[in-house]
């Protein structure tokens, strides 16, 4: 009994208050588009297990769109991307005020995307 009380006294309460800081460096959080190097090869789209990345094709422009609402933060897209146009960050704060803000888009390099688009 005395041991128990000593242990509780030593560890204080079990619920610890941690300051809200950055997630660990290696934590797989929000993926972002980082450069203009997207070649439109669609490797990220086909490899995404949650189908969070889609190709939006308009008449004369094409964009790749990523939805954080569907993303499961596995990091496979970043691993597949040959030009590192998409990368994983350790950002975990994802709340937005509107649903539309959960989707980010990126214009793909036009010429290459057209050929890729035809194959689909």
């Amino acid at each position, binding site marked *: 009994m005395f041991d128990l009380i000593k*242990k509780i006294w030593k560890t204080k309460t*079990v619920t610890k208050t941690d300051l809200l800081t950055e997630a*660990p460096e290696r934590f*797989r959080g929000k993926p972002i588009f980082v450069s203009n190097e997207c070649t439109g090869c669609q490797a990220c789209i086909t490899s995404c297990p949650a189908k969070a990345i889609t190709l939006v094709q308009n008449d004369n422009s094409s964009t790749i769109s990523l939805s954080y609402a569907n993303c499961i933060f596995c*990091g496979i897209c970043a691993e597949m991307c040959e030009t590192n146009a998409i990368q994983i960050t350790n950002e975990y704060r994802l709340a937005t005020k509107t649903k539309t803000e959960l989707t980010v888009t990126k214009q793909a390099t036009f010429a290459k995307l057209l050929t890729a688009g035809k194959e689909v």
Partner: protein
Amino acid sequence: MEKTIKQWLSRMKQQLGNKVRSMEQNGAQETVMLVEKTELPDVCYFLWHEKKGRLFTMVGNDERDIHGFFALYYVFSFDSFRHFITVKTLIDPLDPTFPSVSVQLPAANWYEREVKDLLGLRPQGHPDPRPLILHGDWPEDLHPLRKDFPLDRHAPRVQSRESFMPYDSEDVTEIPVGPIHAGIIEPGHFRFGAVGDTILHLDARLFFTHRGLEKANEGMPLEKALFLAERICGVCALSHSTAFAQAAERLGGVTIPPRAAYLRTLFLELERLYNHIGDVGNICAGFGFAVGVSQGARLKETLQQLNERVAGHRYLRGIIRLGGIRIDITEREKEDIVRTLSYVKKEFQELVDLLFSHDIAMNRMATTGVLSLEHANQLEVVGVAARASGRSVDIRRDQPYAAYDQVSFHVPVYEVGDVLSRVRIRVDEVLESIAIIEQLMHSLPSGDTFTPLPPLPPYRSAMGWCESPRGETVHWLMVGPDQTVYRYRVRSATYSNWPAVPLAVKGNIVPDFPLINKSFELCYACCDR
């Protein structure tokens, strides 16, 4: 050793005589015996009873579009030879029956009922005709693992055929519990037949979370199949992904680089650590010892945060890739692991001292839920539950994988088989795991962490295995001609251990059931798939 295995195999062939149609090697560690289905019970009983092979897994496969037959594979593990013998038999689709092995070999019970449900191959003479995987309201003539059953087919529900043990005496009270429980646990329906407070018999109805993962995996490219394999279970995620990757690597004849093997071993031990420490804490909930629960949860959290810092994921997902590992560690992570583990070791020792010196805790755990060695052997129980009952099986030692042949460790075995023994096994294994990690830290080789996989041979099978925190997990894999999964069978530790729980519960009081159940710490998701 090589020579002795050959001699041993040819001696076995002589003893079995013309019961074996052919015998061929499948990789370095497996020999496949083709037998007629009428000889199946004799050959299996011979391997199990005479030759002391362990029934490792059993797989049914629809191979009608390869050669026109269904196939059954009974895999036996011979730990002293580090070799597997697979008894294979072909079944004509016009007569989809086979003689049951279960009467002589009780461990085959579930496997054969599963084959009946999912492939429509009927084990004749099987003592239990009830459905297992698919519940009684699933149409009897629909078998989802057959290749002609489309993935998106919706089965109509029929009048339920579920039945439980009937009791004639009015003195027996039936207590149905679940599938929805008070705590946040997985679904299972338990029906106790109790006399007063004492449990006479327990019917455990599982497979509420059968998601058809094996069917869903068929036709998937291997990378996606690995991704799905990792999601079979939350707390053994790494064991499942490692087992799957090993099956694919064995099929491709690839040896992963030493650094990748060491890192896999490291993370597998980290998985065992957070599970075992969390489980020791959770056991305390079985008798309301709140300090133990909180301390266990606190240490588990410390370890999961370590996982997050080192691997990027608290449950160690997404770190295995086919042919190696996706992440590497630097000096900084090494220091972090050593520092955190030395803290956890000290704190865990204090928790254990508190628990084992607590009279009420000891009173509740000792002699509760005894699983006898005889039952454990007959049901081929694995993992913590087996070792607590005096059955010394640990696939890390018996058939080493990753870098387990490079480290020395002791496999704790207790004889009593009660809740306390199972807790003691976990406590001992925590200390062993920490010792293994210390050895790995000292001898971590440098070099690559990945070898690319060549195209895999179609319609050949291979197995991958792993000692998950709950016991050995086996993944059996066959790849089709287009490098996608043709058949995939997961036999998790819980699948082997669940049938033992009703035996351990018998004769105990109903309030002890949660404690006994927790001491086995079986996962439903792994079992149901």
